[in-house]
């Protein structure tokens, strides 16, 4: 079946929905999503969305920009970071006007709380004075992402946006540098649908599921990012993957930084507040990459708490906050601790461990979400990307907490605006062949191949080894082993035989297509990590433990190898405006 639209947005999380709201009514717009929109992963964001509103204390957007640049370990593009932080107050106020419910200050303004890595100079007249934590994260209890997602979905209902829910993206059609549409399967029937349009936006989210312990939903398999790579286009900075320091032990379910923003403290087996050693000024509110490394370092030094199964964790102590703060400001995450670990956070510490959380890398775009086709700044006509799947890059080597919700509303809107401008003159270009051919081949191959491999077995091995060899600490030996393993998984993939050969809601087949996507994503993370011989932000090489600005102050672009195997790497400079790189201490 062929559908004709002006614009097709793939993904119905915050970025996709915000872009959809922005498309003027005179243009036809479809949003395709693997899940019903409110099931999208934006809904699991908890602690807040940052903007220098100064509702609780003096602040300004330059403080926010400085923190974001420093948090990115100077790999973030400063021009885009300035755009995002300057636009943040407007973007958050706009959400309020759309109906998003926020926690409030006594004056009735949007309430704000502290968050990791968000600071301001202690002396407002001296920008070089010691920096202290600042209340910048705007929040709605600890359900900020949930109410944001629902508010944006509701505004899409208001604007009569057309949804194709439970449609699974299988192909991106780019011919002669022009993006002409996408192909997707209706999951409930397996029918192939071609979407022929003038503009495509990917807002397809992240890929935390390549790791064993992750806060990411099962749907976070990086389908959009992988399709870009499979289409012969480059991906940017894939080696930078953030581990959130506080996932529930063994489960990886997110415990928001808001827990520490409200005063929670990390303690090792001796009961010591170890972050005082690693980040003397902001302590537990250091950025995520540093706290995650600190946790693993404590465990490696023998100061982890030994769990019932012999694995180690660290304690997150909230007991001193009191029941009132816990119930009012952290109800959701303390509920998770009770449900899943049987721990009562008002009385005992919550066992945590770092959890794979956020992809800083992704589809390279400019600050208007237009997708780059190479390292020289050329664009793919009619193709846009926003949100976690994109790499603008505003997060560089490490994202600050709350900047992801900000990223999706700022760049979702900018993308929508840019698309609207493009549509004024754009034309729908004819396909050169049958665009559904590749999808049909891919599906029929998976359904008909035989062998004794199972999707779930290969996926589990991939996830466990990515955790071990390509996680928080990395080195050449293990990365090379991982590279070899991925090659083997790709071979074994051809011997997977499915049990479900039907056409109705065949999730067996869908998971198998997702696995192919995950294998490609893992390949780019691993090769990028092996190639980058320095430590920066979330990428920590034990064999190259210093940041190396002379050689590595640049973005990685990675392509699928020309002969269909391996990868090709090139680089792109980091955009600098006013912030000079310095040593990253907190």
């Amino acid at each position, binding site marked *: 079946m062929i559908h004709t639209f002006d614009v097709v947005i793939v993904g119905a999380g915050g970025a996709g929905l915000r872009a959809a709201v922005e498309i003027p009514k005179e243009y036809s717009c479809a949003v395709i999503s693997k*899940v*019903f929109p*409110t*099931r*999208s*992963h934006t*809904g*699991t964001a908890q602690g807040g969305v940052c903007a220098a509103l100064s509702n609780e204390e003096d602040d300004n957007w330059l403080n926010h920009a400085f923190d974001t640049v420093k948090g990115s370990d100077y790999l973030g593009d400063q021009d885009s970071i300035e755009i995002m932080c300057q636009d943040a107050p407007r973007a958050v*106020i706009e959400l*309020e*006007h*759309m*109906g998003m*419910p*926020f*926690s*409030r*200050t*006594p*004056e*009735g*303004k*949007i*309430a704000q709380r502290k968050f990791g890595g968000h600071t301001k100079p202690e002396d407002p007249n001296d920008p070089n004075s010691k920096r202290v934590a600042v209340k910048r994260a705007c929040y*709605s*209890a600890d*359900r900020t992402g*949930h*109410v944001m997602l*629902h508010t944006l979905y*509701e*505004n899409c*209902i*208001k604007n009569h946006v057309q949804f194709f829910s439970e449609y699974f993206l299988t192909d991106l059609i780019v011919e002669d540098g022009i993006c002409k549409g996408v192909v997707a399967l209706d999951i*409930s029937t397996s029918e192939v649908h071609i979407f022929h349009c003038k503009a495509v936006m990917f807002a397809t989210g992240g890929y935390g599921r390549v790791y064993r312990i992750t806060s990411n*939903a*099962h*749907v976070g398999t990086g389908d959009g990012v992988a399709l870009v790579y499979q289409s012969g286009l480059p991906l940017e900075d894939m080696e930078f993957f953030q581990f959130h320091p506080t996932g529930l032990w063994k*489960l990886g*379910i997110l415990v928001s930084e808001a827990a520490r923003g409200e005063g929670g403290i990390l303690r090792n087996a001796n009961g010591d507040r170890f972050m005082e050693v690693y980040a003397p000024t902001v302590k537990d509110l250091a950025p995520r990459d540093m706290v995650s490394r600190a946790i693993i370092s404590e465990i490696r030094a023998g100061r982890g708490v030994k769990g019932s199964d012999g694995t180690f964790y660290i304690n997150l102590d909230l007991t001193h906050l009191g029941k009132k703060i816990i119930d009012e400001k952290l109800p*959701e995450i303390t509920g*998770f601790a009770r*449900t*899943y670990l*049987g721990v009562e956070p008002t009385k005992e510490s919550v066992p945590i461990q770092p959890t794979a959380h956020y992809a800083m890398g992704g589809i390279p775009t400019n600050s208007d979400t237009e997708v780059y086709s190479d390292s020289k700044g050329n664009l793919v006509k009619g193709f846009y990307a926003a949100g976690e799947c994109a790499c603008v890059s505003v997060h560089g080597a490490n994202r600050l907490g709350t900047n992801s919700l900000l990223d999706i509303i700022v760049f979702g809107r900018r993308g929508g605006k840019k698309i609207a401008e493009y549509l004024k003159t754009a034309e729908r270009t004819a396909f050169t062949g049958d665009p559904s051919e590749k999808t049909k081949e891919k599906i029929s191959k998976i359904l008909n191949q035989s062998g004794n491999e*199972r*999707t*779930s077995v290969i996926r589990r091995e991939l996830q466990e080894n990515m955790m071990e060899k390509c996680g928080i600490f990395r080195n050449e030996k293990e990365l090379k082993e991982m590279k070899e393993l991925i090659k083997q998984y790709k071979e074994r993939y051809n011997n997977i035989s*499915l*049990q*479900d050969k*039907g*056409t*109705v*809601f*065949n*999730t*067996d087949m869908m998971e198998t297509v997702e696995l192919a996507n995950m294998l490609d994503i893992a390949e780019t993370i691993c090769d990028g990590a092996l190639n980058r011989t320095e430590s920066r932000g979330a990428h920590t090489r034990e064999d190259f433990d210093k940041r190396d600005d002379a050689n590595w102050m640049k973005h990685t672009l990675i392509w699928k190898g020309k002969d269909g195997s391996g990868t090709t790497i090139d680089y792109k400079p980091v955009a600098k405006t006013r912030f000079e790189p310095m040593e990253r201490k907190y």
Partner: protein
Amino acid sequence: MQVTFKILRYNPEKDSEPHFEEYTIEGAPTMTVLDCLHKIKWEQDGTLSFRRSCAHGVCGSDGMKINGRNRLACGTLLKDINTNKVITIEPMPSMPIIKDLVLDMSDFYAKNKSVIPYLINNNPPPADGERLQSNEDAEMLFESAKCILCACCTTSCPSTWSNENYMGPASLLKAYRFVFDTRDEAADERLDIIDTPDGIWRCHTIFNCIEACPKEINITWHISQLKKKLSDREL
């Protein structure tokens, strides 16, 4: 520990009607029912279909009937149910089955849309700031805004079972979310929509919705506030 599940299966391509199939797995008290379904799907029977995403009770994808009660599979741990007996898993009632535990929820979503589920305020907002709202007024919305649209409440309601046109507790809760928002101006329009025989008056305060809600929302209380508002309006 060995745990046995009896799962309702239905594949419209093969089956004329739904039937149960049994699976036994090695479980542990801390495993969720979703973990168990994954274990069955990934190790025994890849043809089993169900929806899931976040796996910790936020996305609302995996509502199903577990031992006769509507719950989220990801929010139900084995230690909280009787594992000495066979555990029965069925799709939630009152919605057409697409396959196995996957339901066609389009009617549920359409009812959610019918209550005008978005803020309406025709006065321009302040040019440079938020609309003010007291924290108390904001918190009046928080419980209703917790709703994850899992449909556990609506499909557990006897009024829904006996009348497919009933709006159901989830859409009434959504109506509350906006009627009681101090920033909203369309309360009357929404009250008109729910003030119908198949609307709010079909709620006979049976409380099944509260028992079923995985987010522990006191749905009946919220509906009672709407009823009160309607009766105040008549005065």
